[in-house]
């Protein structure tokens, strides 16, 4: 069983700039024994953890261990994959995210997502950011809303004179910040980011990392990353996932190995597998 960080950590070994330990934090997501399968083959099994408000929570682990699969559970994107089944529970502020009454479309309005590969719509920069508000019927003050979102995503100064131009004329890093702005424009509570900087150069990556530090004041951020320095730099909490191979059944399943305060994961992990991974001896 994986204990939650709050149980194990008395709230002292937190990042020096983290205002308070997880024990004092509000829980946004409470994941209990989550298992996800594609066409009956489980890709992720028995995951339990808590995601805290106004924290950056990072998921790290080797390729194929189910990080993307897991993060897509939080805004029910897995619903769009016909073969995917989700078992276990995710409570969002105490309410079952997969409850019968819950509308996944509503879920995604509150829980935004930024994808690994920048995916701006083939529309103008303005229309990209305005897309979400328009769909939600937030027509009033659209210009201000778009501007505010672009400012939050640290993109406004670069695009303010060319809002009518195609979003595809932006550089990769700008496109990704546009996608962040697009997610912010509908004022979600949580932002999920699946390797948001993996396709970007170091400068764009730094900008997006700085951005996360800014954004976590207002938002709760969950990020998947391959880059351990990135996790160490931006995350308050880090979860390490790994793949468990069952030779007999030729099955590979992702499991949560360790979830803790980031500094603990990187300097003093309790599990040997975590230590091997973060010190580069594995994966």
């Amino acid at each position: 069983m994986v204990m939650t960080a709050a149980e194990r950590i008395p709230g002292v070994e937190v990042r020096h700039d983290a205002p308070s330990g997880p024990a004092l934090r509000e829980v946004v997501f409470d994941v209990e024994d989550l298992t996800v399968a594609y066409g009956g083959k489980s890709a992720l099994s028995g995951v339990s953890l808590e995601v805290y408000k106004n924290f950056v929570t990072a998921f790290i682990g080797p390729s194929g261990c189910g990080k993307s699969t897991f993060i897509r559970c939080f805004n029910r994107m897995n619903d769009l994959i016909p073969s995917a089944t989700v078992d276990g529970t995710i409570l969002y502020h105490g309410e079952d995210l997969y409850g019968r009454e819950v509308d996944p479309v509503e879920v995604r309005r509150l829980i935004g997502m930024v994808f690994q590969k920048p995916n701006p719509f083939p529309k103008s920069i303005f229309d990209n950011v305005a897309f979400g508000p328009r769909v939600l019927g937030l027509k009033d003050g659209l210009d201000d809303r778009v501007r505010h979102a672009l400012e939050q995503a640290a993109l406004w100064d670069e695009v303010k004179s060319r809002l009518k131009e195609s979003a595809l004329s932006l550089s990769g890093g700008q496109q990704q910040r546009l996608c962040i702005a697009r997610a912010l424009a509908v004022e979600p509570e949580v932002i999920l980011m699946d390797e948001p900087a993996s396709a970007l150069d170091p400068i764009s990556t730094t900008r997006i990392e700085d951005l996360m530090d800014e954004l976590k004041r207002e938002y709760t951020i969950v990020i998947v990353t391959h880059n351990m320095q990135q996790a160490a730099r931006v995350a308050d909490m880090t979860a390490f996932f790994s793949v468990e191979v069952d030779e007999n059944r030729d099955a590979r399943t992702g499991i949560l190995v360790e979830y803790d305060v980031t500094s603990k994961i990187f300097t003093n992990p309790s599990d040997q597998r975590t230590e091997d991974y973060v010190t580069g001896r594995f994966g």
Partner: protein
Amino acid sequence: MQAAAPRLRVHRRRWGEGVVKGALALCALVSIATTIGIVAALLEPSLEFFREVSLVDFFSGTDWAPLFEPARFGVLPLIVGTLSVTFWAVVVAVPFGLGAAIYLSEYARPGVRKALKPALEVLAGVPTVVYGYFALVTFTPFLRSLGLDVQIFNAFSAGVVMGIMIIPTVASISEDAMNAVPQSLRDGAYALGSNKLEVSVRIVVPAAISGIVASFVLGISRAVGETMIALLAAGQLAQLTFVPFEPVETMTAFIAATGIGDVPTGSIEYKTIFAVGLTLFVMTLAMNLFAIRLVRKYREVYE
């Protein structure tokens, strides 16, 4: 002297590549040459025709009676007949074709799509004469049974059935275009809290617009050029009317009916066929060019 340099040079001439290239170029050439040949064949008798009938008379005359005495060569009734039938075909084919494409691409489960798409394409292969008879002996009587004041031959029946015939073409090509829209765009829109309809209408259709417009153009071209249904169901009465339930004669119906009749080669009636054919050709060409410009203007390029 230096042993390394010759390695970059050609060792064996690759004759095969040249042959393949030539053969492929020939294939391209055949279609271009045929098109040029067709235009040339249309042009010559048409030019002779316009030596006898002025362009102004041809395009402004409202009376079409080339086979009677005195012959009148106002082509407007044929153009209007063609446009009227095409109009009803488009009214049917565009919404239903697009709707079917959206359903197949965005809503249908993979199994359903797998079964429906080939069925749709089979439908596109039904001979037009079957549709023509369907319009004449089933659809028109059905309209009459509704108490509508419909002539046996009429533009509406021909147009509607032609539209039904074109639905698979529009649906199939539109669906291909929509399928080619990257899933990442849909995911992006879903992640912002869009529902399926919003994703389809605001993201997928605009991103696939060039393919969708292409499907419309192809559909309209088929309607404009469709002969059998027009001949069987719209009639052969060249009257200048937009009233849907009246008989009209389309350009194609005139060409087919006159072509199989016994007009002597070289006569003015014979040349009329080519003049009408050329007009049809120019109209279709103009429409295609217009559509290409439209697509260029509104296309949303992804990637």
